[in-house]
């Protein structure tokens, strides 16, 4: 991948994860924590059997998104950050795919609380693109790390 292309890809991926993370941490519209809303969003997927795990995920995942997004720009941690992005993208694809398969109607909670049902097929496609881009980033970082 060309140098400029990889920079653009990195900025886009980091931007998506940074915005998604921040909006799950803080609800700017109501000036309050967004954690309760994100907890409910996760619950609506009906995939986790333990409420405490749901809450823990609702607190941790947004910060992981923010940290991974920022770490993508730190050469020493870019490979790990890209791997974290790949993992979160895979989790997203599995969750959305499962919801679509089970015919659930829900708000994906991708960028905080939404107001309309999520188009699951569209989000599945977006997740697959993210997954592919994250994989490409890992390959790039892997090659760069071997050169270093």
């Amino acid at each position, binding site marked *: 991948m060309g140098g400029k292309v990889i920079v653009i890809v990195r900025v886009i991926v980091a931007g998506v994860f940074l915005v998604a993370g921040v909006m799950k941490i803080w609800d700017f519209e109501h000036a309050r924590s967004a954690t309760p809303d994100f907890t*409910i969003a996760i*619950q609506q997927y*009906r995939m986790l059997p333990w409420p*405490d795990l749901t809450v823990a995920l609702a*607190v941790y995942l947004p910060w*992981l998104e923010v940290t991974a997004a920022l770490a993508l720009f730190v050469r020493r941690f870019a490979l*790990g950050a890209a791997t974290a992005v790949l993992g979160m993208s895979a989790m997203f694809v599995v969750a959305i795919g499962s919801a679509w398969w089970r015919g659930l109607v829900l708000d994906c909670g991708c960028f905080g*609380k939404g107001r309309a049902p999520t188009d699951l097929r569209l989000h599945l496609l977006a997740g697959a693109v993210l997954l592919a881009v994250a994989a490409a980033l890992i390959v790039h970082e892997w090659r760069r790390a071997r050169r270093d």
Partner: protein
Amino acid sequence: MIARLLRQLAFVLVLALAPALVSGAWQLAWKKEEPLAPGEVRLATAREWGDKVQWVDARSRAKYERTHLPGALLLNEDEWDTLVKPFIDEWDSDKTLVVYCDGGTCDASHAVAARIRKELSIPDVYVLKGGFAEWEGK
């Protein structure tokens, strides 16, 4: 190389844990209370939403006519077919739906919320934790 990848990944995971722990301790004071079931919301949270909330009364008509939450619309399972049309007409789609029943062990609110999500394709529906009893107790 794999070791380097895992080391970096571990660093990112741990680095994210620090603000998450601080944020969790600060944000989740409400967690000390009884855990919320899927789709439930606490009265305090719904009150924070202010006039963006549309209360939905899932109790019987008799109970609704006796007393109900301010501006609540009646929509229960017994009269679903009759009530659903006026409900849709009156509901302002900018408002978040919060369904309640008596409180305690009643599950009419969960049933009505599930039907609203499935049959009316409205995902933004919550059930008031503690129901009407919670409102009266405040």
